[in-house]
């Protein structure tokens, strides 16, 4: 690595970081550094050897490594500097410069100066302790992603009789993967009355292999001194409390947990980036700039996505915005700023605020609902009493992210500095 100052440092070379760096290059930056903690580029895609990636963005079905490969190929010869096996352990935000503290065996400890930073560190898995499953603490309890790494990257089997808690996509994918490797997956158990995973994964990973899915159930105890021996599963009531008398027992040697992903924002917090409690990711403006000038965020560090295709698009936007920041300087005239507020029917939006002057034609807003809407409904934006925009949907579920394009002309009509978003059943 040369010791020059960079225009842009991208932290993370998963799908988000790769797309962001390429986009920044295309939009005019020349001194870009991508820092990856793993030994290879591609991030979590490297262990996602199943297909289904890229349907939306490339119009074809790719595996995770193939999807990452398309971007890695473009990166080669692009002039973008890349360092792998390097960890960023601290981020400082100054007025004109940002300082990235990185370390590696090869380059030692470095404080790297740059004009802009793109956060693309991804997310981590919630653990058994975050959801406080009591019992003993034997071997055989894995986060689904950790299990996926052992099986797909290390080529190692982790158990023979498996129960899965949580119906997130990684859990579903691993149900099929473990079955194909000869393990018996006894059940997938989900606390909520609906699955958090994509419908296609429920069909292709559970139904096709006769693995039962128990909704409104959870694991309430784990037994086994050295390796897992038995778990207790109970039905839960509408307040998610276990119902006494519904205990069933499973003799298993393995528990896989797919109970949620959490954006990894320890570095962001150190730099003073404001975090949105709803997403656990940075609070961002229309161009994916965080509360801290010159620091942008994209991919799963911003909010957890279901489809990598959207990560790519979002990250390209972040790359473009970071390039504009470096080349044109920080915004001087902020103008009309609208904060997007979520009503109780909506879990979150990204972005969380918009500087109307910065929106060219329309603003794309990603959002999640927090229950299943089976009847035709509307995503409604209001500035108090006036409806600003309304988008019709036939079906919505928490496991499938929604997105809408709000035209600039409509944003111009917003009175005040709040825009409220809610879901409403369509009038018959």
């Amino acid at each position, binding site marked *: 690595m040369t010791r020059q100052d960079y225009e842009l440092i991208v932290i993370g070379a998963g799908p988000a970081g790769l797309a962001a760096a390429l986009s920044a290059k295309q939009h005019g930056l020349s001194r870009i550094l991508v820092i990856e903690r793993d030994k290879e580029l591609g991030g979590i895609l490297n262990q996602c050897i199943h297909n289904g990636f890229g349907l939306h963005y490339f119009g074809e079905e790719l595996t995770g490594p193939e999807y990452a490969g398309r971007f890695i190929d473009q990166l080669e010869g692009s002039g973008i500097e890349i360092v792998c096996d390097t960890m960023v*352990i601290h981020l400082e935000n100054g007025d004109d410069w940002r300082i990235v503290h990185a370390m590696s065996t*090869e380059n030692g400890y470095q404080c790297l100066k740059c004009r802009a930073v793109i956060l693309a560190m991804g997310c981590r898995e919630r*653990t058994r302790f975050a959801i406080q499953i009591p019992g003993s603490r034997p071997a055989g309890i894995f986060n689904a992603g950790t299990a996926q790494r052992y099986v797909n990257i290390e080529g190692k*089997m982790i158990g023979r009789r498996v129960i899965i808690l949580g119906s997130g996509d990684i859990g579903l994918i691993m149900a099929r993967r473990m079955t194909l*490797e000869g393990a018996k997956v006894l059940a997938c158990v989900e606390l909520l009355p609906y699955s958090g995973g994509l419908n296609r994964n429920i069909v292709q990973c559970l139904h096709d292999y006769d693995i039962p899915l128990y909704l409104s159930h959870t694991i309430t105890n784990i037994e086994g*001194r050295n390796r897992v021996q038995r778990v207790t599963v109970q039905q839960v009531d509408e307040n998610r409390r276990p119902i006494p008398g519904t205990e069933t027992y499973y003799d298993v040697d393995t528990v896989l947990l797919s109970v949620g992903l959490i954006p990894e924002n320890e570095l962001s917090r150190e730099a003073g980036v404001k975090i949105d409690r709803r997403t656990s990711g940075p609070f961002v403006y229309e161009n994916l700039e965080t509360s801290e000038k010159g620091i942008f965020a994209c991919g799963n560090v911003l909010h957890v996505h279901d489809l990598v295709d959207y990560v790519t698009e979002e990250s390209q936007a972040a790359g473009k915005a970071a390039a504009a920041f470096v080349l044109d300087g920080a915004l001087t005239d902020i103008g009309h700023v609208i904060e997007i507020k979520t009503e109780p029917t909506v879990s979150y939006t990204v972005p969380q605020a918009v500087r109307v002057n910065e929106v060219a034609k329309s603003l794309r807003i990603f959002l999640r609902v927090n229950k299943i809407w089976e009847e035709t409904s509307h995503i409604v934006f209001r500035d108090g009493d006036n409806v600003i925009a309304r988008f019709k949907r036939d079906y919505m579920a928490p496991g499938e992210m929604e997105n809408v394009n709000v035209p600039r002309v409509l944003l111009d009509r917003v009175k005040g500095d709040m825009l409220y978003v809610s879901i409403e059943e369509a009038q018959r």
Partner: protein
Amino acid sequence: MFDVAILGAGVSGSALAYQLSRFHLDVVVLEKENDVSLGASRANTAIVHGGYDPPPDTLMGHLNVDGARMCMELVDRLDVEFRKTGSLIVAFDDEDMKEVHNLYDRGLQNGVPSMEILDGEEVSRREPNLSKEIIGALWVPESGVINPWEFTLAMMEVAVREGVELKLCEKVIGLKRQDKGFLIETERGTYSARYVVNATGVHSEKIHNMVAEPAFHIHPTRGQYYLLDRSVGEVVNSVVFQCPSPLGKGVLVSPTIHYNTLVGPDSEVVEDCENTSTTREALDDVARQAKRSVPSLQLGSNIRNFAGVRANSDYGDFYIKISAPYFLDIAAIKSPGLTCAPRIATYAIELLREAGLDFKEKETWDGTRSVVRFKEIPEEEREAFIRENPLYGRVICRCETITEGEIVAAIHRPITPVSLDGIKRRAGTGMGRCQSGFCGPRVLEILARETGKATEDILQDKEGSHILIGDTKEGRV
């Protein structure tokens, strides 16, 4: 034939091994588990207690203040993580306040230095997150938080380096008197030793009864805990106790050496002395009690629950005696056993000397140890350090910033770990919020590589806790 066999490699056994290693003695330590510090010494409140609590007429009362002072000296010599945070024992009403004064008096009798009684306003100034209902507290500055398994390991590592033999996976199943001492039967073989020291914690009654008349009953007492993420910030600056009850020191809220927050324990007598499971009921109870001290406590930031079983007994004190010829009990060691351990060891040496063991000091003995913690290296020195030691440039545990260099160094210290938890206790990997989700596979690989084992043979924790069971179909090719 060994001069001394210590049964048990918890904090008591390790502290004694450390002290004995300075003499010309052949010492063996027999431990039933695959590593040091796998009983109560790894699952406790991790506190060096000030000494205000034990009654002055007990051995606990006699040893506590000295023990705390020795701990604070040893953590420097052994490079063990420790912070002198001080402790507060808070009072919610006049009844509690009376108890605070009692504890103050008791502390004076035990020789506890620099105690103060604070009013509610002062407590609130020092600890803004505490309940506004607190009307006063006892302040005990000479106390703090320690890394208990590192303390235990450090003492045993030095002992082993200085000539003590440590035999792991050696569960004692019989003790027979011989003319010149004992024949010790384990599940795997036999050892002869002139003196036997029983430092087996919750198992000490069983071992005692092999050679002496029953004298005490162990009531294995389980305590459950929460460990909270650093992201919630520093909840308390010092160890915050509620007033003690007959059941124990009560639920406390404490900072840890790594600036996490520890909450617990409850107190429940269990039949199986190795039952360290947690239960919903007890965890809910701990949460309820802790919120009395810190109403805003965010248990949603939990990163680990655990339980330890302490060797409470009907004896009401440590049972440290020559109970039979050539047989020393260091039995029924409950709280404040961790604090007292170094002093118990020197007391044990006095008893062994009285019982005829000859102590001749070695001409040279090095009672120190040091370890590298990358996090503690000043920023301006890191570059040079990594140039010299490139493995310290690779971060393996990202939550706690632990490097490969630290892991490799831990593996090659005098007691070789066999499990991921063994590395965790030595290097601190997997202690953070992801609970080894990311670093687990990499630590496993490093441990297998450095010890020349197959990855399938690397354990999570105790014997039988296998993580991997073989290759996948593709992996077999």
